């Protein structure tokens, strides 16, 4: 890009991009954290509700597999939040007793779920296993012993996909801002570089005039200074022009 202002603006472009990226990444990070917390909180709430319903039956002395209402509760959970695609109730041995997908009944629960249920106490733990983000709550029987757990999960990539969408929107906004910022900076720097342009043009014109004025065909210059070590460029040009004129006269006299 010709021009000092254009080159300066190009030099600023990467810094502007860095500033935009830093600001965007900061908000994106924080928003992703908040969205993850909201999703995890939703799963945890559903897991809590399911656990409370099951522990009500266990408190009455029923065996986990005998609490038939559990399957209805699971089906309702799916209806309440369509993003939930995994709901499983597993017993103390880690075997799935009720599940959203009936084909999973009888299979072993994911080890991460079993560990989370065993370590969770009264709370809910959020774990990622087999590509699913799951809220896991432990189940207690009538005498407070471990009776297994409840896992409520969804696609772990959901928040990431949402973040990607918002990131795309941010990138588009940043691109617009970058262009606007560069245009504004170019305008400001063009105005600021005007004195430099004037000084440079004046200096260049003065230099060219100096060279042109010392043409042999031009007017006779003042006698040059005697000390060659102290020649200035202007005096040297004038002296050389005078010598050419002398040679011209010699040539003509011959």
């Amino acid at each position, binding site marked *: 890009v010709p021009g000092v202002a254009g080159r300066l603006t190009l030099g*600023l472009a990467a810094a502007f991009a860095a500033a*935009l990226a830093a600001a965007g990444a900061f908000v994106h990070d924080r928003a992703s954290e908040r*969205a993850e917390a909201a999703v995890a909180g939703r799963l945890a*709430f559903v897991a809590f509700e399911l656990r409370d319903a099951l522990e009500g039956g266990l408190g009455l002395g029923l065996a986990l597999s005998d609490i038939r209402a559990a399957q209805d509760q699971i089906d309702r959970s799916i209806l309440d939040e369509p993003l939930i695609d995994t709901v499983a109730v597993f017993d103390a041995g880690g075997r799935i007793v009720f599940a959203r997908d009936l084909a999973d009944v009888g299979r072993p629960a994911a080890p991460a779920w079993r560990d989370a249920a065993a370590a969770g106490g009264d709370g809910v733990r959020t774990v990622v296993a087999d590509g699913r983000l799951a809220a896991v709550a432990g189940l207690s029987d009538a005498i407070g012993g471990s009776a297994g757990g409840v896992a409520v999960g969804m696609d772990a990539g959901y928040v990431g996909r949402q973040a990607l969408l918002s990131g795309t929107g941010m990138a588009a906004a940043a691109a617009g801002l970058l262009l606007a910022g560069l245009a504004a*900076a170019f305008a400001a720097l063009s105005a600021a570089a005007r004195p430099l342009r004037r000084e440079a043009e004046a*200096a260049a014109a003065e230099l060219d005039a100096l060279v042109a004025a010392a043409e042999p065909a031009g007017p006779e210059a003042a006698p040059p200074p005697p000390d*060659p070590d102290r020649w200035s460029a202007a005096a040297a*040009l004038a002296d050389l022009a005078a010598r050419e004129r002398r*040679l011209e006269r010699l040539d003509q006299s011959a």
Partner: protein
Amino acid sequence: VSGPAGLVAAARRTGVAAVAAGAAAALLLAAAALAAAVAVVLPDLAGERERTAAVVATSVERSIERALALGVPFDRLAGMPEFLSRILRENPDLRFVAATGADGTIAYWEGVSRHRLQPILDAGALDGAAPVGGRADLVRAEADGFSILALALDAPAGPAGRLLVGTQPRQILEEAALALPDALRILAFAALLGAAAGWAAWAGVAGDRAAEAQSRLGALGGTRIPRLPRPPRRDELGAVEAALDRAALALHDRYRRVLAHAEEVRGAVFDADVAARAAEVERETAAAHGPALAEPPPPAALPRPGRLTRAAVALSLSAGAAAAAFLALGPPAAAAFVAAAAVVAATPIPRETARALGVVGALAAVAGFAGAAAGGAAPDPATAWASAPLVAGAGLGLAAAALRRHPARGDRATPLPPAAAAAFAAACATLLGPLAGSGALLVLGAAAALAAALSLPPAEG
């Protein structure tokens, strides 16, 4: 020519403008980006909260309707305050949960007070509320800054009232305001980066070349005007550079022309006296100007500030990011890095010592960083590893910057650019350090900083 002082002064004023414009524009852009990003994510976050509100509303509705189905009258539901209080405690994103009777009077509530909610309902906030979530029974309305989800409560005898769950989109902004100190750090970082880039771009584009032109214009006091060792650029300063080259070539050309003319006259005339006088002109010209003008103008033996600037800026930007990464490992590591940089930068030491210090520092930094990452000390090993090359680049850049010779200082390292770089690194570490846990921020910032260094104008010389 009276240009030098005016040219350099004008170039300096342009430099001040570049630094100010860089800092101000980067600051404003970062602020606008923060606002735009918040505007982009706000609907998503509000949507997530509403999904939570819908799940909670359905669950609470089911619990209440179960009690109503067992024959418990709506106005005698036991334990409702405790139940709703637990619901709000488990879902901090919700602002209130309330249940109204069939006449629209709030009977149970938790969160926002009944005195505030009742007038909202009495004003007909739920009239014409639109169904959401693909469900006919779940409707949503906005009133008084709240987003309210409502579900009809049914009893065996008929409609018993409504369950209301409210979120407050403004709450997200209030939570975002808590991150204001961190946002201010981002803004300060942006301003610092913009100022540094403005200074660096000015030094490479105008500052160093104005100094060159001043030096060559000063040479007009003698007759040996050095030529620029590259073609003049096509910009404002390029006009002066080209005029200086033309003047330098004109001097040599005129000298050669006088000698050639004298020889031509000597060879062409038959008059011995004229030939002798032409030979005398030739001798006098050679004696007066030969030492300076017999050879074509020499290429300028100018300092190479462009290269120096590039090295310093590459160093300063990458060191800033690296120092921030270091802070992720703890302040002592960052302090040690910046202190070592400052020692090397501030001391005009012999080149060999600077080289050794720079290389040893870089290797030590990489080893320490890798050790910390492998040992799990870093909060995010992937970020730590991604930043390791930056740390190495910072150390080597430091050495490179310190190694450049400056004519005025002879065989000594030049302290100013590395010192400025160390100060820049310290400032960046202070500003970005507390945010270093944010991996995306650090990697993006570091990558953009490197891009900034690489996009600078090419080095001179």
